[in-house]
């Protein structure tokens, strides 16, 4: 391996090749993939990318796993990647190596105590989708219901722990400088480790099914606890198409607006009413239907917010006064104090700039929004990324918003792909 460019990802890869065993690390898996020559062809790249950026992105994408996720979560704020790459990163999926039918069989038997044929009326040996940490198979339950069975790749928890040991070491300089708070790495690790317990995911599904019931356009799967464990999760099969397939059908502007509005509504309902959100914005987790309903799958990554944080968000969302006022400044400082941090002048300035140059444009604060915001124009994405980067540079990253920021970014990216027009402020106002 050459040491032409000493990027963090390169360092991590270098360390992985020295230290981590074949089975012990996702990074090791990435190396294995490179070796097998399958890493190519997976990146969808825009022609505008420079070579260096493309290489960096390929590395990150092939890392997948924990490194992928931390890259995804933190790089949004770090400005180490070009904007378009960053925007796409938010929706990339963390996925495990594929399992052949024999390994799937072993995992099911060990986890549920019986062979798949004894449990289900029928079970498809090949997966129909990749999931975070595993893969999903079609099956038919004994009662004739069609189900999706998610099966976890073996030993995943430990590989994540191993990778975080690496990541902690590699990110020491950024921690020391205060750019990446130590708590941020803890937060990401905790969230990812939580995803390895499918029982917890089943609880999340039940929670969100109940909480999101008022939104008639949201569909959530039902869990079959009798066919589930910490490593196997059986759910009712959801209908709908993924974003790419949905767009390939050339949906009308009206339908795209409607779906965009629903997506936007869903996000703010979760943040402001439920105070918790489905925080994995990967496109595979959203299923779009022609009746403008949205199917949500994969509840492994759910972020529960603190009520104080939500109260703070309420106070600054659609803030109608001047952003350079003492009142606004007081609001920002109060919240940073609550998080046990000081708000330096530089950070405050970037926060104000964020409010002015992004939020006020996308969310006009006036009492009635005549025109919907058009997400087709990508300037808003560039604004968002630029402001995020500045926030990182001035050490303003908030641990609690890491996952929310990723979900928000993912939502913007999806709205942009949909070219949706949404009455943004009207929707937020509903829940303030």
């Amino acid at each position, binding site marked *: 391996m050459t040491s032409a460019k000493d990027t963090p990802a390169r360092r991590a890869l270098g360390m992985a090749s020295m230290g981590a065993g074949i089975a012990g690390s996702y990074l090791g898996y990435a190396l294995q993939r490179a070796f097998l*020559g399958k890493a190519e062809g997976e990146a969808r790249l825009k022609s505008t990318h420079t070579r260096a950026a493309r290489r960096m992105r390929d590395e990150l994408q092939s890392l997948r796993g924990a490194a992928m996720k931390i890259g995804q979560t933190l790089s949004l704020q770090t400005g180490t990647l070009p904007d378009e790459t960053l925007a796409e990163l938010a929706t990339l999926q963390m996925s495990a190596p594929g399992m*052949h*039918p024999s*390994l799937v069989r072993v995992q099911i038997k060990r986890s549920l105590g019986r062979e798949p044929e004894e449990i289900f009326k029928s079970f498809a040996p090949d997966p129909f989708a990749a999931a975070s940490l595993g893969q999903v198979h079609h099956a038919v339950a004994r009662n004739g219901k069609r189900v999706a069975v998610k099966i976890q790749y073996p030993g995943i928890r430990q*590989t994540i722990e191993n990778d975080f040991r690496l990541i902690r070491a590699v990110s020491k300089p950024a921690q020391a400088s205060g750019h990446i708070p130590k708590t941020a790495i803890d937060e990401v690790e905790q969230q990812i480790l939580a995803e390895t317990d499918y029982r917890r995911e089943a609880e999340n599904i039940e929670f969100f099914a109940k909480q999101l019931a008022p939104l008639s356009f949201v569909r959530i799967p039902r869990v079959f606890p009798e066919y589930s464990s910490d490593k196997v999760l059986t759910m009712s099969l959801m209908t709908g198409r993924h974003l790419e397939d949905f767009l390939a059908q050339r949906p009308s502007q009206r339908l795209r607006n409607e779906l965009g509005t629903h997506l936007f509504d869903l996000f703010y309902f979760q943040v402001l009413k439920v105070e918790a959100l489905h925080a994995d914005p990967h496109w595979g987790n959203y299923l779009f239907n022609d009746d403008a309903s949205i199917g949500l799958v994969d509840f492994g990554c759910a972020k529960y917010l603190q009520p104080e944080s939500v109260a703070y968000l309420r106070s600054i969302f659609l803030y109608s006064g001047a952003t350079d006022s003492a009142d606004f400044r007081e609001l920002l400082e109060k919240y940073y104090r609550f998080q046990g941090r000081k708000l330096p002048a530089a950070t405050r300035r970037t926060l104000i700039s964020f409010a002015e140059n992004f939020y006020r444009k996308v969310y006009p604060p006036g009492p009635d929004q005549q025109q919907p915001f058009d997400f087709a124009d990508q300037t808003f994405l560039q604004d968002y990324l630029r402001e995020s980067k500045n926030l990182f540079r001035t050490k303003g990253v908030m641990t609690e918003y890491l996952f929310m920021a990723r979900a928000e970014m993912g939502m913007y990216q999806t709205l942009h792909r949909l070219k949706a027009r949404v009455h943004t402020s009207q929707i937020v106002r509903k829940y303030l």
Partner: protein
Amino acid sequence: MTASRKPKSKARPPSRKAKPRPAGRRAQSKQAIREGIVKAALSLFQTKGFDATTTKAIARKAGIAEGTVFNYFKSKDDIALHFFEQEVDQAMAAVRDNPRLRKAPLEEKLFTLVHSQLEFLAPYERFIGTALIHALKPASPLGPFSHRAQELRHRYLGFVEELIEESIPKHRHSPLTFLAPEVFWIYYLGALLYWLYDSSEGKQNTLAFLDRSLNIGVSMLKRGRR
């Protein structure tokens, strides 16, 4: 599981005149005694340790006279070897007799082979560790140089070679392919050690290890990329 062979000294050519039932019954009871001895021995190897176990203790545990043990096995090493033969036989059958694996890729067949071996060994994990060390002692019947152990290894590696032959066409053989069976033997011992030392819950890490290492290994046997 395949039936083990009858001891040579007692074997008779099958006679057409003889009534099949009594002969079958006798063979069955012999088989039962043999299995009883193996079971008793393994449980002692596992609890008391291989070295501390005597043939006398095995006989007592199996509920037979010590002399009877010697009608079936020469020594306790012989019993252990019989167990390893069973392990290999059932693992090969798990691959051969599974219709699902007929069109499976090589790495999946090899995974099933090694995984079946480890599953078979799992109840006697403690004994496997000591057996591995014991086998390294010179002149041990379990050791790699004893005639019977060599025969077992040849049978096992012959099977691995067969699997490779039927999965990778000749023109795609890499320069490493001809070494593959020997390399696989070392790999198997490595996997066994990994499994013995694997403290992860449900030995999940061993599954990941087998899966990933076999993917790499098999790709090295093929020339060109898919």
